[in-house]
């Protein structure tokens, strides 16, 4: 948890550094613990763009899962549907929240079962070339 906070803090401080392009700030990353045999898990996170240009979250990778996709849960035709987003646009000076029942990053085929208190490693790859690593804490239900 402490390590996770350090990473978040660093990613927020980076815009103040000499690296002008590093303008994305991450926060509130978490997953809810799933049953041991569950192979998928949803990650929730807040992404803020403190820069002056819009940025796309182009892909997500995780060495703890086979694949990662950005999903939006929507209500259509009376059914809850998960829509796959090829990328997620973060406008300049705005914050996009991935929350339960809204958007999430779905990690599929987890390499092993993750319990509450553990962390899943994840990389967010942005269109400006920025790659941010997040260690996502698993919370108890």
């Amino acid at each position, binding site marked *: 948890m402490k390590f996770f906070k350090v990473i978040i803090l660093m990613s927020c401080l980076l815009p103040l550094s000499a690296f002008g392009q590093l303008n994305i700030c991450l926060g509130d990353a978490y997953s*809810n613990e*799933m*049953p*041991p*045999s*569950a*192979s*998928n*898990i*949803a990650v929730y996170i807040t992404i803020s763009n403190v820069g002056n240009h819009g940025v796309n979250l182009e892909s997500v990778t995780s060495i703890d899962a086979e694949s990662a996709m950005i*999903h939006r*849960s929507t*209500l*259509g*035709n*009376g*059914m*809850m*549907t*998960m829509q796959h987003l090829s990328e997620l646009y973060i406008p300049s000076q705005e914050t996009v929240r991935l929350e*339960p*029942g809204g958007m*999430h990053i*779905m*990690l*599929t*085929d987890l390499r092993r079962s993750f319990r509450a208190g553990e962390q899943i490693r994840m990389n967010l790859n942005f269109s400006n070339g920025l790659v941010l690593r997040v260690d996502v804490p698993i919370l108890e*239900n």
Partner: protein
Amino acid sequence: MKKQIVITAISSVAILMLLLVLILRPSEMTNEELSENGLYIHDVPRPLNEFSLIDQNNNSINSGLLQNQWTLIFFGYTYCPDICPLTMSILNQFSGILNEEGSYADDTQIIMVSVDPRRDTPEKLEEYVGFFNDDYLGLSGEYIEIFKFASQLNIAFAYAPGEDEDYLVSHSGEIVLINPNGEFHGFFKVPHDPESMAFNYQAVRSTWD
């Protein structure tokens, strides 16, 4: 004079307490009020046709399961990472409220029916449902039986194409309410909130019993 004051004070307190009890009791809500608060009640409960499903312990299940107690049914699947665990967690909080308040917990059963029987075996459902609450039941069975059962309850589901085993299932998010006669009594609308669900449910129960 003193006696009069005492009598006035006592009766004021009594009236106040009576008012409080009436205000705090979630009874006497009309169906319109319940609907506005998230629980739709049918004007006339709808009887259900016989069905044949399998529980998480491989036991055959039919309409007898729904007799003599109230039932909440959620349709979902274990590969679903967002809405289903969220709803199961909300149901568990709902059960927690009934337990804490000592109201209607004993004769309320909660069931998850899988809309993905191809992947959700009874063994998988046992672990999944038990993870959220040991008392919950997880039902699966033949696709056609699940489809017929869901259709009676206005629950729709559809498969989205995917690779091999990595497909997603769209499904209605409503939680179905069945009365002790085994009839489709109403449904909790999306989005769900454990507090208002418990309040609405207690209101329905207080007028039924």
